[in-house]
């Protein structure tokens, strides 16, 4: 009799545990899908801002540049003003493209990554080496994920590392894509820095896509960011 009721209790506990586990899984799923939707929303918003920048300030500066070009040659000073306006225009265009990289839609991840590296390192002292070996079709949201993480990590290399060499490699193996970004710069102690938007967004994005994210950095020994994402 008592044996029976113990067995019954045990069964009840197991049943409740299974229920809880299922609830927890559901909650986690809901959170992940919410996170994904939030990132998608942010991309839409960035695309809107990028268009506004391009069509707003961009057009004004185009107009200004054209008019200055029409005037210049009459004095060296005007020539210089014209140069400054041209630089401002190209900076705005660049900013708008970085904000929403249409190249990702137009040409796909590989050219987009090369474009990103070229643009970020064009005027830098550091050398960048890029290798991209992808032999599978990558869904749009994963492409955006990899592009944005690359962008944050590379901007950090440019801003903080003082490196002379930076490498980015992106490769697929079976159904996993591995992104690896390393610099030979200053490095830092990951436990003692105040994470900014960059590192936080890398971690959050990776989590939303079930990607494995590791950041290794040692003062004096450079920094390495690795992402493994299942496709």
């Amino acid at each position, binding site marked *: 009799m008592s044996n029976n009721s113990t067995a019954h209790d045990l069964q009840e506990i197991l049943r409740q545990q299974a229920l809880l586990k299922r609830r927890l899984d559901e909650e986690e799923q809901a959170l992940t899908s919410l996170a994904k939707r939030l990132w998608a929303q942010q991309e839409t918003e960035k695309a809107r801002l990028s268009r506004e920048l391009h069509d707003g300030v961009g057009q004004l500066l185009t107009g200004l540049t054209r008019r200055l070009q029409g005037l210049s040659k009459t004095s060296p000073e005007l020539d210089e003003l014209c140069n400054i306006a041209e630089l401002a225009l190209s900076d705005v265009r660049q900013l708008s493209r970085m904000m929403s990289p*249409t*190249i990702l839609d*137009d040409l796909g991840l590989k050219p987009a990554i090369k*474009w990103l590296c*070229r643009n970020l390192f064009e*005027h830098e002292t550091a*050398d960048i080496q890029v290798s991209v070996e992808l032999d599978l079709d990558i869904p749009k949201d994963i492409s955006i994920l990899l592009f944005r993480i690359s962008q944050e990590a590379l901007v950090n290399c440019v801003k903080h590392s003082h490196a002379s060499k930076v490498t980015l490699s992106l490769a697929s193996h079976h159904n996993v894509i591995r992104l690896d970004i390393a610099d030979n710069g200053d490095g830092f102690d990951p436990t003692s820095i105040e994470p900014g938007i960059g590192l936080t967004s890398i971690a959050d994005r990776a989590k939303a896509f079930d990607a494995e994210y590791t950041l290794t950095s040692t003062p004096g020994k450079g920094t390495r960011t690795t992402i493994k994402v299942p496709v």
Partner: protein
Amino acid sequence: MTISVVLADDHVLMRQGVSQMIEADPDLTVVGECGDGVELIDQTLRLTPDVVVMDISMPKMSGLVAIDKLLSQRPDTRILVLSMHDEVEYVEAMQGAGAKGYLLKESSGDELIAAIKKVAQGKTVFPNADTGQSEISPAARRLSPLSALTRREREVFFLVAAGNTSKKIAELLDMSLKTAENHRSNIYKKLNVSSSAELIRMAGKAGLLE
């Protein structure tokens, strides 16, 4: 012999403008116009134009995929890409996909007509490879751009960055105009810039302007 053209661009105004330019040339005629990649393939296979003139960013099917599909179904299709993007990655991708030409939308009507005619003859039209690489050697710009300058040059540097002319600088630093200009050109050389605009931008990026 008129050259027939199918034109694809989702931007209607742009397409009309281009179409008018093409029609205005006695040797060219537009036999089909469309606004997306799917229609483009359909029209090209049906109308077999001498040249396809197309944009890259289009709805339903991107230009890159459309080129791929077109060439697999009609390998001798001659495609001229008309694009707003001047980046080397775009040109390479389109060339790699099998397009015969690449022209920027800001090109003049004459350039467009000339490009279509060339492509129709089986020639290729691509911009000079602008790799976007600057010649600035990494070593030339160490961490502080100013470390390469002498003390006097630094003074001149800040005055240039503040927008002063050589004449004004000569006055302020009590030197001859010739000396001021010499300093200026040495600074440009050392920093690898070619104008005061570039110098200002560089100073801004290095956080040297308040």
